[in-house]
């Protein structure tokens, strides 16, 4: 009984996860902290999941590694050692594969993006053939195990048919596993029998199914051949296939109905919850805003702009506006100025880092610059560009408004000199103001980051 499920232990761990590795911190890297895919913030007991991102076979080892907070390589070695010593590892692995729920299959993107994905209005996930290496390693290992078993138990024991049969079952199981629950549903949310079997379709799943069935039939034939002649083998094979077919016909519709009802109930529940969430959000945002606009039409543009910003960040995410990072702080600052002065402040940030005390002056100076632009430039739009590199933070605030002559500004005007130039210089940075009447203004702020935080 040496067969494929053991094999994950054999290949050195991380490469299989490479395609997604950059995006998902966590289980794929040995020694990474225990970042259980979904358990993170959820209350209640910590649960183990199979890790579908770092998987080589079923993702059991990497999921277990994340759960136990040990390097995934150890888990894989443990599996292969216990598999070689008597096969307990295989049984354990197979059992966990069946019983552990798949983790991180509900990737949560921003609502707008998710909705568009569900409605088929975004391109689907692109699958890459990055996994050929591990598959070949698995194959080699499986064949090696069979040879090893033959040398131990003697030539021609039951090994080959059983090994082939198990490989077939494993292939079919893996196919069914890949076609995980919600992928069974077609666009309208009904269970689609074809999708249950084929998953997302494509030649890979057809190949897997064909190979799995072929392997099982081969195993049957081989097993029957051991009893005697070809004709007997053929009869036995046909009888078994007919038997399986009969059972499928009897049980199939019942299972189908069961899964349909299950899926209906489940999606109904999810839909209800989502509807409640959306309703709550719309009430808090759009409805309140509309009510305000009816009371004071003069503020319509400002309110609409604030609402758009809010809704956009809720729907399409990405942009945080909390004060913990410098980009977030700049966006929060821009939002405040927008609300207060009724101009549009467009923030583009490249790179990001934590907002430390040394960086606060840059944000404060940027706020002053944006406020100046909003007050004096007389244009509806201000651009803010921030670039965070390993060594420094640069912030540019630009408008295309009236402009002024920096040299002609009286000494007693404290806004520019005190709040921007002097402040930046006090904290070891520089500020440069380029402006000419009629040509708009650009304020350039530069601040070096601390070495230890870089």
């Amino acid at each position, binding site marked *: 009984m040496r067969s494929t499920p053991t094999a994950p232990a054999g290949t050195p761990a991380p490469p299989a996860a490479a*395609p997604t590795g*950059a*995006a998902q911190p966590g289980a794929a890297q040995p020694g990474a902290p225990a970042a259980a895919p979904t358990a993170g913030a959820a209350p209640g007991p910590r649960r183990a999941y199979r890790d579908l991102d770092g998987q080589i076979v079923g993702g059991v080892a990497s999921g277990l590694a994340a759960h136990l907070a040990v390097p995934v390589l150890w888990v894989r070695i443990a599996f292969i050692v216990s598999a070689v010593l008597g096969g307990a590892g295989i049984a354990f692995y197979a059992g966990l594969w069946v019983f552990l729920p798949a983790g991180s299959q509900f990737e949560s993107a*921003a609502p*707008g*993006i998710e909705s*568009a994905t569900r*409605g*088929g*209005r*975004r*391109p*689907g996930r*692109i699958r*890459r053939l990055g996994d050929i290496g591990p598959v070949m390693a698995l194959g080699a290992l499986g064949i090696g195990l069979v040879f090893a078993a033959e040398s131990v138990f003697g030539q021609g024991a039951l090994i080959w048919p059983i090994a082939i049969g198990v490989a077939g079952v494993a292939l079919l199981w893996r196919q069914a596993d890949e076609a995980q629950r919600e992928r069974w549903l077609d666009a309208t949310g009904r269970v689609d029998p074809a999708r249950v079997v084929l998953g997302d379709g494509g030649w890979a799943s057809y190949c897997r199914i064909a190979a799995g069935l072929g392997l099982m039939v081969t195993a049957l034939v081989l097993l029957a051949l051991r009893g005697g002649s070809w004709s007997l083998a053929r009869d036995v094979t046909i009888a078994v296939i007919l038997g399986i077919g009969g059972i499928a016909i009897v049980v199939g519709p019942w299972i189908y109905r069961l899964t349909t009802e299950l899926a209906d109930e489940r999606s109904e529940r999810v839909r209800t919850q989502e509807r409640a969430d959306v309703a709550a959000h719309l009430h808090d945002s759009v409805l309140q805003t509309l009510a305000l606009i009816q009371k004071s039409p003069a503020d319509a543009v400002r309110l609409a702009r604030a609402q*758009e910003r809010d809704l*956009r960040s809720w*729907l*399409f*995410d*990405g942009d945080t506006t909390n004060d913990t990072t410098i980009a977030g702080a700049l966006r929060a600052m821009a939002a405040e100025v927008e609300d207060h002065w009724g101009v549009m402040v*467009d923030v*583009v*940030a*490249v*790179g*990001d880092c934590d907002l430390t005390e040394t960086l606060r002056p840059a944000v404060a100076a940027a706020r002053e610059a944006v406020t100046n632009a909003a007050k004096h430039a007389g244009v509806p739009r201000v*651009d803010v*560009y921030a*670039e965070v590199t390993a060594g420094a933070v640069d912030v*540019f605030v*630009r408008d*295309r408004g009236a402009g002024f002559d920096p040299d002609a500004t009286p000494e007693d005007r404290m806004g520019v000199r005190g709040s921007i130039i002097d402040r930046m210089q006090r904290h070891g940075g520089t500020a440069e103001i380029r402006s000419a009447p009629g040509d708009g203004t*650009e304020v350039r702020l530069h601040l070096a980051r601390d070495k230890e935080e870089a």
Partner: protein
Amino acid sequence: MSVKVVVVDDHGMFRRGVMAELAASGAGVVDVVGEAEDVDTAVSTIASAAPDVVLLDVHLPGGGGVEVMRRGAPGADTRYLALSVSDAAEDVIGTIRGGARGYVTKTITGPELVDAITRVSEGDAVFSPRLAGFVLDAFAGSIDVADVDEDLDRLTEREREVMRLIARGYSYKEVAKELFISIKTVETHMSSVLRKLQLSSRHELTRWASDRRLL
């Protein structure tokens, strides 16, 4: 000679609005020759109307705007300008990598849109500050753009400079003035940035070059 445009968006109301806006601010410059509401109708409309520029919604029934560009008449001289309410990085970068020559959000004003359409129709790329920021981010590795080839991955120093200025809100003309180069050079830099974004491997680069009879 006016630029022939097809408007693709699944919201009929928005389509009407865009067409009215184009008629108002782009009279004589832009000529709407067709509209479509999903991937299938878009592909057939583009095939029959042979527009110069397609205004393409990113989120579209049938697989999104990227699917339209994938299936839309290969070899035809049609350019795509993405017009979307979403400014999520993955949508923007994904659409540009899918072959769009520019990306603008739906809050754009009529005259700006007309300007963007004419620029795209002339073969230039339209980069908004936000898009330039995403591009810089993507090349800096902050956004996970899968399988970008190492060699293509690097913007030249000049291209980076141009992108920075665009991200700071400069217009093409202002960029040219700032860097003491011609507008044409700025446009060349933008096009090569676009090319680097769309191609993910040397293999594709070769195909791209041979498609344009450069090899």
